[in-house]
């Protein structure tokens, strides 16, 4: 149903360990991600941003509270196709080229071969990776790898893209161009965005800014720094 929110979380909690050593990465977080949302999740390292993104992506299960994806189906249906994820660390598959890495989610979603290739080539161009399609991940710089991973998250025009520190390894100008590309493609495809960043200048490019501190999520609008 088009009117349904993409993600609804109620008192979402994720803890690791047990007893005295228990660590709560996400505590009692309640939020909604609607269609066409552009959300930046800001917070220092270790505040729980990545864990929250993993929960939203359906890769991890909460230890408390509830999360659902009313407009996307159940947890099993999220990937590939509904939710694209760009991880914080190096996540390109080492034996595949940049082009093959970007094609992979489309192939997993059983898209037509010609569509797969054309879409991947478009994304390569859009994210400034022209000429790197045939390179292996180990032949790329950290920034190039990160851009390729973000491009892969957009493959197949998912309803929601989650990106964890997508500009962490980019210089400022490249980071700005990356965000430009993300926003532009999201607009064309109608994709919602939820990115985690500790860079406030990047966060300010997004309509909505949430903050996280020691596992606690504040969805109240953050003031712009400018």
């Amino acid at each position: 149903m088009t009117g349904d929110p993409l993600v609804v979380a109620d008192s979402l909690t994720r803890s690791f360990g047990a007893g005295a050593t228990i660590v709560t990465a996400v505590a009692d977080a309640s939020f909604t991600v609607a269609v066409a949302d552009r959300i930046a999740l800001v917070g220092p390292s270790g505040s729980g941003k990545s864990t929250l993104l993993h929960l939203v992506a359906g890769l991890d299960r909460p230890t408390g509270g509830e999360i659902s994806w009313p407009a996307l189906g159940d947890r099993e249906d999220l990937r590939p196709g509904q939710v694209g994820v760009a991880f914080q660390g190096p996540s390109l598959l080492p034996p595949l080229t940049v082009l093959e890495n970007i094609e992979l989610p489309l192939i997993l979603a059983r898209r037509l071969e010609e569509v797969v290739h054309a879409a991947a080539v478009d994304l390569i161009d859009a994210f400034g990776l022209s000429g790197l399609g045939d390179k292996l991940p180990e032949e790329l710089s950290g920034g190039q790898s990160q851009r390729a991973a973000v491009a892969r998250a957009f493959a197949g025009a998912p309803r929601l893209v989650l990106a964890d520190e997508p500009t962490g390894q980019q210089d400022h100008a490249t980071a700005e161009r990356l965000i430009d590309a993300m926003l532009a493609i999201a607009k064309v495809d109608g994709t919602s965005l939820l990115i985690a960043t500790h860079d406030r200048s990047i966060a300010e490019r997004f309509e909505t800014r949430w903050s996280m501190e020691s596992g606690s999520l504040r969805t109240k609008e953050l003031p712009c720094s400018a």
Partner: protein
Amino acid sequence: MLGLIWLRGLIGRRAGRLVGQSIGVALAVVLLASLGTFFTSSRAVMTRQAIAAIPVDWQVQVNASTTPARVLKTVQAAPGVSTALEVGYADVSAFSTRVAGTVRTTGGGKVLGLPADYATSFPGEIRYLVGARSGVLLAQQTAANLGAAVGSTVTIVRPGQPKATVTVDGIVDLPAADSLFQSIGLGPGAGPIAPPDNVMLLSTDAWRALFAATPSGAISTQVHVGLDHSLPADPGAAFVAVTGQAKNLEAALVGGGSVGDNLSARLGAARSDAVYAQLLFLFLGLPGVIIAGILTAAIASSGRERRRREQALLRVRGASPRQIVRLAAYEALLTGTIGSALGLIGASIAGWWAFGTARFGATGGQTLAWAAFSVAVGFGLSYLTVVLPAWRDSRSLTVRSAQVAIGTPRRPLWERLYLDIISLCTGGLIYWQAVRAGYQVVLAPEGVPTISVNYFTLLAPLLFWVGAALLTWRIGGWLLRHGRGAIAAVSRPFAHGLSGVVAASMSRQRQALARGLVLMALTASFALSVGIFNTTYANQSRVDAQLTNGADVAITTTASAGLPAGLADAVRQVPGVVAAQPMLHRFAYVGNDLQDLYGIDPGTIGLATTMSNAFFAGGNAQQVLRTLATTPNGVLVSEETVLDFQLHPGDTVRLRLQFTSDHAYHMVPFVYVGVAREFPTAPHDSFFVTNGAYVARATGSVSAQTLLIRTDASPPAVAASVRSLLGPASGATVQDIVTQERITLSGLTAIDLAGLTRLELAFALVLAAGASGLVLALGLAERRRTFAIAAALGAKRRQLGAFVWSEAAFVAIGGVMFGALAGWGIAQAIVKILTGVFDPPPEHLSAPWAYLGVFALATVVAVAVAGIGMLRATSRPGAEIIRDL
């Protein structure tokens, strides 16, 4: 401190890798220490068996220049002598007896004079059958020839003296007649002399009384010697020791006596068996140890990329290359210790299971030495596979390049130099040269203390092995590099749309996959070559036993009258007998050569015994026997005789056979119709096979000397029934194939070959499981993060399976196929090179289909367990992996 932290981290986070490496080390230690058990215990057992098989160690012939008493005194004083007894030998012209009014007379014979304690001093020499154990004892065959029994009066026809008459007190068998009546003092290479047909044993006093006045040429004296058997465990060393002792005695006798060294002769045969044991260790054992080493290296290298990245991180944090190598050494120490300890425990169990002993050597010293050696190899292996790559990386890699996992590999030096092709060609040349020249790998010349082993020839299978492994690597690498389309096409049925990505992924991981392929191929070739060797050996043992025995059960007699008339019909009534066919066994002169002649019914002989195609030139037994049947005076001749006498089919062969009418040899014409290479009960070198009816008609005697019996029950049980049918005094021998098979096995094979092959075959299964399952599992485990990312991108278990199963199938199926080809070729080379172990040499290899089935099953199960386990683990990535993304 840093080492402890590192080890704690490894145990906590890389336990799988440590366990895998430890298992690899343990496998090498298990096999090496178990082989130590085989190697040392088999030699010791061979020596013990050689000693035990000799009733009289030395027979010292007293020469005419001295007296028996003087020789006896010298012998008794010689070092190592525990027993020395004087034995008199006298030649007699004949024995005769009167039975039911007719006089039976034998040919020439021997009368022995034995001291009272002879039988207790040399218990293997005389077997008492009927009657008293002292007095006048008649050999069983002589009693049968004379029709004499206990109480019979026998006349001894003495040369140059009047006849003497004695009364028989007992009937005995002389199991070691060949050595008892040997000619002492003949040079090496002199042919054996058949023992006399007619023998009588007397006490020393009675013998002296009868032959005191006999001319000196007709009597002789020997001193029979038993030695103190504290000899070296190795047959070769024992042979040298005993030979030296014998020469020392001959020197002390100063020409007064010659030593017939029965013990050295036996040890001489055992020492070549010991060398074959050494060769079997090299051919069948060492490859297993090497494969275990390669397996360990493969397990260690499956974590190498991660280790390189870890080391790169350490270097970034300021660790020096020396510190990094030291950390790798801690890891090697840990896996070496665990692996060696597990290996020694495993070797004890394996030794107990395969060889019946949990020790690794025949003595305490050997046990310690083999255990220490095996542990040293275990630690060496551990250091080689962990520390060496770390040391090399620390010297040659930059931090950046150490983080590179895939890369574009440069073609290795061996590939550019075509070492695989060169190895195969060189191995082929060595093999061709050896086979063409009809060489023997082990030469143990009679009377010579040293053994010559043609180690150069052993290079052939080694080079085949190396060449096949490298060629597999080359072809596997080439396929992965250039055959991406083919791999995609093959994997499409289960990879569907992912087949192109799967093929690309495999192509870029070709180094690791080609390594896995080679390891699997080596393991399969090892299993196949050991299995083929074992099966071929077992088959040849059965063929040998059947050839020697003639049939499931065979009755033979050397009595001129042959087997009793009507025996065949009586035997056919015995339960378990399917068929019984008589066979004439005569002797015939061709020129001056006396050869065995077998008279058969070609139409029915196959009912009682197997007529193998291999027995006849042309390879068609049915056709050859049909030709013989249709040519009443036809004869099948051995290849040697055909060559010696330049025979052509249709030629007339004039043989001289003994006629019943006058006991003289007369010419009988035969027509040469074919070549017989082997024949049941026939000797190896030369013999004739012809129609029994023609021989009977020509010689005037229908008597058969052999009855061949096919059974559908236990041959030993049928043999027992037949023995009771014949009765104790028949003089005929009844032998069954099961007992014969045990006897015909050489000392080497009777002891340990079964245990060795059992160990090797079991080991090959473990290696196969390790090479396929463990290596696959560890390789996949190292890429767990990659699979987790793929799962996070939406890959379902089936889609992840496309990657896992494609790689597994490439390694397992490809490896087994290459390994089967290589194994077959290597087995062919090993069997040919170790021909001396086989009797008769096999015409073709025998495949162990059941074992190969188990091998394939073990591989499939190991791959399936590894693959399914990995898919279960990665399709639902754990929290730890997710947090790592």
